[in-house]
Structures are given as C-alpha cells and as structure tokens.
C-alpha cells in the first residue's frame, strides 16, 4: 500500500464504508446493529450501534494487520515520530505490560521507579521478571514522589549490569519528568532498553513547550495513552516502538493477552484522534497550557492552596514539568487532597481526576470551557472559606521506600495466609494495596510490611481514599506469604 497522507483515516473510513454499503451481517456481534435489543440504540444512538462490528476482510484484523489497520498504524507511527505503532484496545495497561514482556523474561531484571503504575508491577507478577526499584526523588514541601535521579539510575545500572531494561514514567501522574535523554544514553551505553510509560504524556509529542517525548528522546518503546490526553475513546491506546525492537516479536507478545474481538469504536477513535493531533495538536495543547497557567495563577492568588508548576523543577529528579497538569497542594488549608476531592464532587458537582493525601489533580484539555475552569477555581475558594482547618496532624509523606523481600511473582503465587492488617507488620505482602487513582501501590507483592506502610494505609482509609488491591474489599485483612 502506498504511503497515505496524514489527512487520511483509513480505518475510520473503512468502518464507515461498511455501514454505508449496508452489508448484511451474518457474523458477530449478535446485536446486529442494535436490532436485537432496541434498548441499545435508544441508549447509545443508532449510528454508534452500526459501527460496532467485528473484524472482517474490509476492516482488517488487529492481531494480524495487513490492510486498513496496518495503514492506520503506519500513519500513527509517522505522527508520533516512531518506527512502528501498535493500536491497543486493552488500555495503556496492556501497552506497559507489552513493553516489559517484550524486553524482560522470567528472572531477568528491570530497573524502574517505585512510583510506577500497578500495571507495571502486575506485568512482573505474571512473567516473573525481577524489579530493581529506584527510590524516586521527593518534593519535601508537597510530599509527592518525583522522577528518578540520573545518578541513581547510573548506580542501579552499575549494580545490576545484567538488567535488561529501564522503565521511566514520562511524566508521573503529577506531571514530573526525569531527565529522559540522559537516562536513555546511560542505559543504552550499558546495553539496556529504555521503556517510557507515557500514560500521561501523549501530548508531549505535539507541543514544543512540553517535556521531551519518549520517541524524541530515543526510548526503545513508549506506551502513549491516547485516551487520556489525546482525545480517543477510553481504553484505547498506542504502543510506539523504535527499530531497535523487533516489531513482529512485539506483535506476538501483544496477541498473548489482547482480545481477538478488538472493538472498532476504540480502534477508529485512535485513527481519528491521530489525525486531529497531527493537524490541531499544537493548537489544542497550547490552549490547555493557557488554561492550566491561568488556573495556577488564580488558585495561587486565593491563598492557602499551592498550585505548583514548572518552578518545582530541580534539574534532576524533576527535570521537567508538564505545563498542562493542574495539581494543587491542599495541606496548608488543613484538608487532605481526598477531602477536597470529595467536597468538590459532593457539594459543587465538580469531578476531578484524583485527590491523594496532600494534593488534588485536575485534568485539563482543549475540551474544557472557560466557565468550567472558573467554576473549579471558585469552588476551591469556597472550600477554603467554609472548611479551612489547622494543618496540624495531617500525614505528610506519600512515598515509602520499599523493602523488597521476594519477587512479585514468587510472593503472589506463594502459599499465603490472611491476617488482620495490623498483624501484618514485618510479614511479606502477597497482594497489592493502593489508592485508586492514582494506582501507585503503597504495598506490592513481595514487599515487607513496615510501620510506615500501615500508618499510610490507615490514614488513607480514614480520609476516605478509594483503596483497592487486596482480596478483602474492606482492606481490614491482608494476605501475606505464609
């Protein structure tokens, strides 16, 4: 197939064509354009139902792309400056896991910051690779974990010359970036692959005021969550690769766990989002940056709150800051981030991305309206006026250096016993505990339970964080290695 222009959306066009051609469907899905159950078109709309079809000759096959999906992926690779791109329908979770499985096998080491998303550690639970954790830097005032220091990465590489890969958050949930280009050169010099978790960094590819993107920095693979900040439908994502990794092997790894009934609404949304980003991304993220900068100024003018920005950069563990992120430190008004998060939703009808112990995070995009940004700022002003407390007694640290006693896989599959949380002190955890979002584990399988960890879990529970991970949904008990 000859190279298409970025104006083309081969997959979305083919999907629409099958609808217009009025194909008679004797294949799945059984709802047949929604006619099986009229409640579906009433709810989702007829058009949406008629686009929910299965892979067929004219629409290609995600597991073995040869026509329109292949062409759409090639356009995506070009738009993101990668050699290969893979459309993912199992979320960025699957893209992160593919990166790890494609580079590290059982018993092989991967260097990664401890504040990774659970999907990365899950990948280790499944394939038995071993984590070498790097203690991320920490901003003392904000109590948030930052990125990895270059010296720390270098040290880990020297200590573990047999490690296969280094995984970098680009950026963290809070918008903090490590010095990716230097980490790439250090890791490549030691023969290790560099994997960028860009679950929150899709926009880096389309605006020069934003930190460097994984592909531009020379990473071997990057998981770009198009649905988070790139405008595609929830759960759709893109895995980007440079020619330093074998694309056919990557495809094999993807097909190990990817659905064979990939959803075409998700896939075509990736195609449409890619075209929009290519032509309008700069404008869209310019608008997002302007919203975020305006909101930071206004919130900081309210007093009490600290909407932090690029000034937290320190040249190392916070090498660069994502200007589109609107994170607000709430501890100085005596409220935990999660309390502000709950007040915003319950009293003011404003849903933000997450609140943790000391901060709230709002996701902004070109889809925001000025008036909604004003509402958020005004609601924060009201919360301060009506609910401000003395900050004394607020727990002030977010990052706990883990004591890794076993591999995540060994601990997860070990013979385990259930104990009340408070009796787990000193035992090796057999399961995760985390607040979701952000989904960064407080405790991961294989890590020893320390007093700090128990204090953190109890505090987060008391403040109303949404805790997940353990089999016990109330998190009163935890499974530990027997």
């Amino acid at each position, binding site marked *: 197939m000859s190279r298409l222009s970025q104006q083309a959306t081969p997959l979305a066009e083919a999907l629409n064509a099958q609808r217009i051609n009025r194909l008679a469907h004797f294949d799945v899905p059984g709802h047949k354009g929604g006619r099986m159950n009229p409640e579906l078109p009433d709810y989702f709309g007829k058009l949406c139902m008629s686009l929910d079809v299965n892979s067929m000759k004219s629409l290609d096959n995600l597991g073995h792309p040869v026509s329109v999906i292949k062409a759409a992926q090639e356009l995506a690779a070009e738009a993101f400056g990668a050699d290969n791109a893979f459309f993912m329908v199992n979320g960025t979770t699957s893209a992160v896991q593919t990166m790890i499985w494609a580079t590290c096998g059982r018993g092989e080491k991967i260097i990664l910051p401890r504040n990774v998303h659970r999907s990365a550690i899950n990948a280790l639970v499944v394939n038995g690779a071993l984590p070498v954790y790097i203690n991320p830097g920490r901003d003392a005032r904000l109590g948030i974990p930052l990125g990895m220091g270059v010296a720390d990465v270098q040290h880990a590489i020297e200590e573990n010359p047999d490690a296969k890969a280094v995984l970098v958050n680009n950026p963290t949930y809070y918008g903090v970036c490590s010095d990716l280009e230097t980490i790439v050169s250090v890791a490549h010099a030691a023969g290790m692959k560099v994997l960028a978790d860009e679950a929150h960094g899709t926009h880096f590819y389309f605006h020069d005021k934003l930190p460097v993107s994984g592909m531009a920095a020379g990473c071997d693979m990057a998981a770009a969550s198009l649905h988070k900040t790139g405008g595609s439908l929830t759960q759709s994502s893109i895995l980007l690769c440079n020619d330093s990794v074998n694309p056919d092997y990557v495809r094999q790894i993807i097909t190990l766990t990817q659905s064979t009934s990939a959803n075409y609404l998700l896939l075509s949304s990736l195609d449409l989002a890619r075209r929009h980003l290519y032509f309008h991304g700069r404008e869209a993220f310019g608008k997002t940056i302007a919203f975020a900068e305006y909101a930071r100024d206004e919130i900081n003018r309210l007093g009490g709150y600290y909407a932090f920005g690029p000034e937290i950069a320190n040249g190392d563990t916070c090498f660069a800051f994502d200007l589109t992120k609107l994170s607000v430190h709430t501890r100085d008004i005596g409220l935990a981030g999660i309390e502000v998060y709950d007040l915003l939703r319950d009293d*003011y009808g404003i849903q933000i991305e997450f609140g943790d112990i000391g901060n709230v995070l709002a996701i902004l995009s070109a889809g925001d309206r000025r008036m909604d940004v*004003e*509402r958020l*700022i005004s*609601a924060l*002003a*009201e919360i301060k006026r009506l609910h401000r407390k003395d900050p004394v007694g607020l727990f002030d640290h977010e990052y706990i250096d883990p004591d890794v006693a076993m591999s995540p896989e060994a601990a997860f599959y070990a013979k385990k016993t259930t104990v009340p949380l408070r009796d787990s002190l000193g035992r090796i955890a057999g399961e995760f505990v985390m607040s979701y979002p952000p989904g960064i584990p407080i405790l991961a399988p294989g890590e020893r339970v320390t007093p700090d960890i128990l204090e953190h879990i109890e505090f987060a529970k008391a403040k109303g964080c949404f805790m997940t991970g353990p089999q016990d949904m109330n998190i009163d008990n935890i499974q530990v290695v027997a």
Partner: protein
Amino acid sequence: MELWYTDKHTEDVNFSIKVKKQLASHRSEIQQIDILDTYGFGRVLVLDGDLMITEKDEYIYHEMMTHVPMAVHPHVESVLVVGGGDGGTVRELVKYPGIKEIDLVESDKEVVTLASIHLPFTACKLRDPRVRMHFEEGLRFVRAKKDAYDLIIVDCPDPYGPAEGLFTREFYGNCCNALKDDGILINQHESPFYAAHQTSVKNAHQHIAIEFPVSTVYQCHIPSYPSGHWLFGFASLKYDPVRDLDAVRWEKLGITTRYYNTELHRGAFALPNYVRELLKS
C-alpha cells in the same frame, strides 16, 4: 413573505413572533447575538437562539429584579449586577440617588456594544457616572470581592449556556462572601411551570438556601418568557422581604414604575401551591 422568529420554550412548545427586520447578527467570541425588530414585541434580543428580552415586556423583569430589594434594604450604596449587558437593570438602579456605585460585570462586551446601538430603551443609562463596566467572567469577578456590596443582582440568561457557571453553589457562596453583613442577593430563577426548567429552579433555590439564612422566592408575569410565570430568588443575610418592606420610604422617593408597586411587592411573595411544593421537594 412572512418571517417568524421562534423561541423554543420546551422541546414541545414554541413561541413565535413575526419579524419586521433583523437589525444585527453577530458571532461574538462567546455566543451568537441577534437583534430583531418584530411586530408584536418591538425590538428583541436573542442570544444563541434564545429570547432574552423584548421591548414590550422587559420593564416587568427589570423592575421586579431591582425595586423589590431596593424597597427592603434601607441604605443601598454599592450594587453589583452580574450579566445584564442590555442595561435594563442599570436603568432601574440609577433612579435611586442613594446608590453611589454600580459594578456591571458582563462576560460578553459585544452584547453591550450592540445593545447600545439597537436597544436604547434599556442601554440608555449605561453611561451614568456611577456605573463601572467590567468585561469578564462573573465567577472570576465575584470571588475576589469581600464585604463589598449591599446588593447583588444576578441578571443572567438560562443555566444551560454561557451563564451556566452562575447557577452554581460556588457562585452563590462567592456572592455571599462579596456581600456586606446586611446584603441582599437577587437571582433570576427561571420558570417553575415546565418540567424542563423545574430542576434548575430547584437547584438554584437549594444552592442559595445553603448559603443564606433568609432565602425565598417571588414571582411575576412576563408574557414573552416560557409559560409567562417567572420566579426570582430573594436571599439575604438579614432582611425579610415582606416584614422589612418600607413602603413609606420607597413611596417618598417618587420613582415612576410601570409594573412594580409596594402592594404588588407583598403579593409577589405569595406563591401558588405547585411552586411551594417544587421548592420543598
């Protein structure tokens, strides 16, 4: 040829006026602004397709928003009008010599520009020296103010458009903070009649009641508005709108009005049962 403008009162109910001539059609940064000259209602201001005011009945709306609080509060000196770019509320306010300053906060400057050209019957007093115009978001303006006003009038169109942010709890809370200890807030509340608008009436009332110890509703009849039956919110930190009405003081001012009088003031707070039930639910 007949040309008709239709305002959709609900999905199933239309209100149409025969048009003489379109005087202005302009896309501002915020909204579509149209001004029509009509047969039945004179000049009409339309924003994003929705009817805002008509020359024939705008006085009812503007008088009821202004004179009700002015007859209750004994010494209003500083007033904030949020929205109201057509100038009608300001026209009523400047009738009071006691008022020293009026801040008008309108998010769309071009509404004021076009109103000044085509709607002189409302915009005529915008150049009064006591009026200061601010072209910015109402929410942003109000949250920076504290103990600044005796009276705030929220003169904004419906809650599902550019003014959506002004029908929220955070806005009313910011207003409460911007008012002096004996301040009054008047809010345009929509109509209680059609189900489609009932939620916004209820929400506005509930949000205001949380912030203000005195919070009630009064009504009037505006023929060009959906159902014609219209509500305003009266909220105060101190004054009761009926008990604290000082009819004698107000009559002495000798202000000419076409709709408002102090007898009607008392009656406007007597609500039909269906409205009482709506506000209670």
